[in-house]
């Protein structure tokens, strides 16, 4: 009976939960107050499964599954917080901190940065990997906003919000591998680009990479919660 109605039951961290067929592990976990760390994922945008922080273990296979894109199935047993996962999450966060120049004390997002919060939560107390210290540019050509590539973690939330929600597709990724950066238009200055100045990219940016110029040097909390509401209102129409 439950099968035909598309309702599935599964176990997450020992807790029996029910879910609708087609839901992701992350959705079901969050509905049941089970916390899985995420960075590239944000409610309201398409999932890309890129940051790999939301990986979970599924009993019966040694493979790890990105919970933001992996669908649930009947009877699966999910573990979200094992020593193996915690170790990988710490290494991934360390990789991010060593990749560019994340200096919290002088960052506009200090205190309300998703990367910083995750690092504290996952117990990253120091970085054992060599810092790469790349020389990256800051583009302050836009009249309202600035992009500081030194703080960018390439989560592509800005790319997705601009394409999927604003419909402008000003942001995209240029280059490959460690040399990838986010760009506006065809690598034009942000100020000279076709940007609609809506500011959605700034609000969804998890770090201090995109920020509002009027907030330089002061606290710059971000409010990404508009996304689910916006989607809800659009669907209602």
């Amino acid at each position, binding site marked *: 009976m439950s099968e035909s109605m598309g309702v599935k039951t599964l176990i997450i961290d020992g807790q029996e939960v029910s879910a609708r067929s087609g839901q992701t592990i992350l959705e079901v976990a969050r509905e049941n107050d089970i916390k899985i760390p995420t960075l590239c994922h944000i409610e309201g945008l398409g999932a890309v499964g890129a940051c*790999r922080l939301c990986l979970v273990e599924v009993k019966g296979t040694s493979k790890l599954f990105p919970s933001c894109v992996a669908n649930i199935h009947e009877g699966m047993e999910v573990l979200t917080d094992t020593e193996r996962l915690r170790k990988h999450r710490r290494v991934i966060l360390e990789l*991010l901190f060593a*990749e560019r120049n994340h200096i919290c004390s002088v960052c506009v997002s200090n205190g309300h940065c998703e990367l910083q919060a995750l690092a504290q939560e996952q117990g990253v107390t120091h970085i054992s990997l060599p810092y790469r210290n790349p020389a990256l540019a800051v583009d302050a050509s836009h009249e309202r906003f600035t992009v500081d590539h030194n703080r960018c973690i390439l989560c592509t939330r800005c790319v997705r919000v601009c394409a999927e929600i604003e419909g402008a597709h000003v942001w995209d990724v240029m280059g490959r591998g460690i*040399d990838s950066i986010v760009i506006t238009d065809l690598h034009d200055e942000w100020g000279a680009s076709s940007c609609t100045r809506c500011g959605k990219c700034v609000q969804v940016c998890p770090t201090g990479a995109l920020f509002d110029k009027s907030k330089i040097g002061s606290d710059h909390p971000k409010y990404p919660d508009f996304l689910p509401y916006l989607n809800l209102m659009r669907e209602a129409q």
Partner: protein
Amino acid sequence: MTIEELEQVAKSVCQENEKYDFEVNVCMDLACMSQGADRLREALEKAAGASDKHVLVRRTGCMGPCSSGPLVRVDPEETLYHHVNAGHAEAIVASLGGAPVPELQCDLNDHFDRQVRVVLENAGHIDPEKIDDYIARDGYKALLTALTEMTPSGVIHRITESGLRGRGGGGYPTGLKWGTVAKAGGELKYVVCNGDEGDPGAFMDRSVMEGDPHRVIEGMAIAAYAVGASKGFIYVRAEYPVAVSRLTTALRDTRRRGLLGSGICNTPFNFDVEIRLGAGAFVCGEETALLASIEGRRGAPKPRPPYPAVSGLWGKPTLINNVETFANIAPIVRNGGKWFANMGSERSKGTKVFALTGKIANTGLVEVPMGIKLREIIEVIGGGVPDGHTFKAVQTGGPSGGCIPAEMLDLGVSYDALMAVGSIMGSGGMIVMDDTSCMVNVARFFVEFCMTESCGKCIPCRAGTAQMFTLLSRICEGSGTMEDLDLLVSLCNTIKETSLCGLGMTAPNPVLSTLKYFKNEYIEHIVHKRCPAGVCNMEAHASEVSKEVLA
């Protein structure tokens, strides 16, 4: 075109060939071409025209031993000449019907006798730009037989029975994949051929596409019939211009003959193929990235599921196979699944084409039955390590593979056996290394390759490969510590387990396998600051240390 018409074409080609007493086949593969095979062919044609003998000079695809090129084979005597240049043309033509030219003759019997040629059966025997040559060697017979005498499920059954596994590296059972795409719903389906061969030292797919392009097209058409697709794409890297031009010619001729297009062989089956060029990204060999590239988007992988078999090109069910996989299809349909399953080992059937490179005498292309010992490939077929050096390791599977040491040379080549020793089958590159190769430096080379070819989407691969490269560079330069080594191992573990696609998941393999079998070399670099093979330059670091001491 019907089977009768096909046989008619084959017959007329044979009749035409019978007019000649001798066939002089000139290898016109890229390696031979770069050494003047085109001038050689012109000279041979001129010499043949001037003599009163009836000689057919034919350009062919890769004959195999590329290091001996340009190669010429004279039939019916099957005399093989190596290192031929245009100046030898007259001597060769003059020798026809008499004793062969001694100084050009080469003895590669050991090299050829141990090989079993299925994929390369036409290599060296047909002109890749002549569809009739292919038809004369049973070309397109399998397609027409499938269309007129077999049901799509019958074709899939035959492929399943053959035990063929994907030749791109993953080794996924081909019949199972076809069955999944066939069962997927929807009117529109696609067949995609992955010709984005990017492993350093691998050139199997290039040689197949250049030497026998129709074989790939026929395989794709049979696949399309089996899964119910009407449109195909061949994704070739733009660095293979000869392959692209020969495929383009082949597609044009196939359409002219009515073997592609609508209502093929008077059946309701429609199928056509387009070529798409890759822009030089290694990661586009990964199937989801390849599909994104065909769609015109950035070549970055997507998490699977959904698999392309369910949601591929433009969201439609898509069958994607490697060049060599498609090249195996026609012979399987023609000769039956059991014939194919009789070759090879328990769980790896058929043959595999390998590109032998590195420190080996007979560099080039070989096709061997699965299960053959590595030792036989390297020492007998490959002719061993030249110049009195000793064999150290063989690297299989490209940047995703591992290094296999001399102690394991008696390993039978199969998907599972290679996986068990920390390497992979991969697409078939085989790089042989001798005592002049530093294994730490080799690992660094492959990690650097993965670092520059990472798409940058997921963190472990993007930042992790860069960190691996930094740590390996430190070790190679003499500034590495034992802590760096521990860090490297921990990093490898995370990258392997958490990366999004195969590129990242396998990027640590060269490091892990060299660490497993050649850890002493790492220790030598770190503790004693010396490179046993004498490859790494550690002087820069040593002089810095001495300066510090002096200060």
